């Protein structure tokens, strides 16, 4: 893996090498040119030698499967048979003409609303906790910790919470609310319940992001505002919000692509039953239950296209994001 070329390259590449010796003979010029071009070649190769392993793995584990996915999407492969029949764009035609395949995107709306709630809650607590609060770090830790928990464990915790006479029902009964609804059994509630689980799990992440952004606002801004007699609402509206606007907007756009691709929580908790099927679960079902890997691959690629579109919009509107990926 290119280590040899690494060892031979002792040439600083930052500045061009100043020519040594003077008035070279034509023959030497030729050989010099050759030496430079050799050096240039080494210089050209070096970064690729460093990249060989990471890029190799990236291609092997991401781009080769992606290429295969595109290939599958042009066939009627069932995922079992060694042979696959070329069907051209038939799967995409189906994607373009069958609105039933997109009905599940409606479910994503619940997660999107959940994400808005999540961002609001996170922003509220990030604001509170960036100022003087008793046991600040304890609260910070408690609010954040759910984000770190294993997804399967969260699935069990919330199945236990939502089941009949479970945590939630008992708590409501404690406050005198009898006759609770079926949190997962009622098709009108199930997606709200699952989106709620998602909010519980991911608020901590947004919260810590916002907290970081708020803390990077220069302190003298607050002092100046204090002198101007601003109250805490003004402080939030005129200093904090502009300071975190970017991160909030970014979180919101990430939430859109996240909501489009929701998979783990509904899959572990309900398997997509009772109207909780998302686009990703539908694709997995198409591949495994209906044995239409070709169509499922096309669905995966359409979903990817949607996610990329959202990301493109993000890059367009926030071109100078903190990590420049230019």
């Amino acid at each position, binding site marked *: 893996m290119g280590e040899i070329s690494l060892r031979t390259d002792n040439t600083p590449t930052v500045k061009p090498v100043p020519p040594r010796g003077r008035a070279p003979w034509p023959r030497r010029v030729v050989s010099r040119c050759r030496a430079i071009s050799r050096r240039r070649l080494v210089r050209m190769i070096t970064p690729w030698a460093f990249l060989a392993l990471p890029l190799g793995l990236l291609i092997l584990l991401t781009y080769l499967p992606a290429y295969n996915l595109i290939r599958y999407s042009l066939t009627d492969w069932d995922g*079992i048979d060694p042979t696959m029949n070329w069907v051209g764009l038939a799967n995409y035609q189906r994607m373009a003409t069958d609105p039933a395949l997109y009905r599940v995107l409606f479910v994503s709306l619940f997660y999107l609303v959940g994400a808005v709630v999540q961002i609001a809650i996170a922003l509220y607590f990030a604001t509170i906790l960036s100022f003087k609060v008793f046991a600040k770090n304890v609260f910070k830790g408690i609010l954040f910790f759910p984000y770190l928990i294993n997804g399967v464990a969260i699935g069990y915790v919330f199945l236990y919470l939502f089941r009949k006479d479970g945590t939630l029902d008992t708590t409501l009964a404690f406050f005198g609310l009898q006759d609770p609804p*079926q949190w*997962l059994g009622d098709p009108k509630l199930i997606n709200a319940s699952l989106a709620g689980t998602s909010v519980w799990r991911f608020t901590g992440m947004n919260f810590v992001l916002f907290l970081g952004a708020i803390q990077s606002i220069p302190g003298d801004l607050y002092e100046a505002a204090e002198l101007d007699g601003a109250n805490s609402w003004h402080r939030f509206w005129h200093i904090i919000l502009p300071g975190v606007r970017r991160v909030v907007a970014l979180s919101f756009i990430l939430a859109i692509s996240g909501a489009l691709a929701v998979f783990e929580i509904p899959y572990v908790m309900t398997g997509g039953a009772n109207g909780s099927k998302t686009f990703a679960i539908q694709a997995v079902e198409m591949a495994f239950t209906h044995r239409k890997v070709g169509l499922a691959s096309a669905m995966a690629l359409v979903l990817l296209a949607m996610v990329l579109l959202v990301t493109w919009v993000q890059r367009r509107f926030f071109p100078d994001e903190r990590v420049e990926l230019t």
Partner: protein
Amino acid sequence: MKTKWPAAVAMGALVSLVLAACGDNGDGDGSGTSSPPAGADAPAGGPAGELKVLTHRTDLDQDGTLQGYADKFMAKYPEVTKVEFESITAYDDDVPLRLSTGDFGDVLSIPNGVTNDQLAQFFEPFGTKAELSAKYQFLDSFSVGDQVYGLAQGGIATGVVYNKKVFADAGVTQPPTSYDDFLAALQAVKDNTDAVPLYTNYKDGWPLGDLQRNMGVAKGNADAKNDMTANDAPWAEDGDAYWLDSLLYDAVDKGLTEDDPTTTNWEESKTLLGTGKVATLVLQSWAISQMQAAATDAGASADDIGFLPVPSATAGASFAAVLGDRYYAMNAKSENKATAKAWVEFMIEESGYDAKEGFVSTLKSAPLPSNLSALSYLGTELFEPTAAPAGAEGLFDAIDTAAEIGFSSAPYRQALIDQARQHVAKAEAFSALNAKWAAGRAAAG
């Protein structure tokens, strides 16, 4: 073995009668012949070396039962050094992915999703139908032409497990065998007791998928699945698929099932039936022994667990399909086929697995299990579903795939339950299925 002989003999006679009537089981009446020792017909060299077995029975792997069989097998064939089990939770999702890779052990349970026209690509035939039918039954499901690619792990009868005490408490004195009587009994359970009349096992899902085994049972139509491939409207009133899915649909629509289907649990359902908190579950005869064990464990009586035929379309007659449960197959790429075959024969003939599970033995010579005595008491007619005609082995699956129904899948019946809970008219739901099926036929036919 606590087989009740008279009942069993009577049942055996009945089965062979019915099977003979179906016509395609030929002359091999094995019920008197004793089978030769299993090792006798093993190929030269004999079973030896290591064997890898893929199984859907995670429970039996976990509790060491399978290892017990392996120890017995290795005691019989000392040359065999190791039998390794790989039990897989999401069996029917994961194993099909592995088929095209060739890496699926030496012996496996055939996963759902493999169509019959694919069998020859992956599996080694056990022999021809003519050779095997003298000894084994349930050969049709995974045969192509004359070659047999799958041997049944055991046979089962379709039916309903129920709690006799709950029925008695509800005032149901006569075992309901017809559709109307059965729904009336469920209603009586709802009105007169606190028990859930019918438990769907919606969350775990696979019991819903297994309901497809009841296809044709309501009218005793052994050709139901074959007929369906020639019918654009199998869910039309009085059709076989109509009867198959009506029971579930009507029970849910009338509120005769559990309140919250999304929190059901298979293990729990056994205890619930045993303790009388649930009245009925539509499952096959293999479930009887598990239900009885759960009843005993929960401090109730195993005698409370009873078995009924699937409700029939008309009063006065009732039917049960007897068919293979899961099937064993051998990997065509296995390097140890002699041992693989010996393992399958051992499991069917000597392990005692079928007796433990209450299966109808795959061996024709074995008596029927005692758990089917209730059916003979009720005069239920047993039949074996007819295999697809030669050349059309994959047709049903092809139409089903093209239609995107998933006839034997859980999501399909979960969606039916979802509709019934929201009281979508049955006619509407079923005509949508007809439309899908017709489109599937047009695409795949």
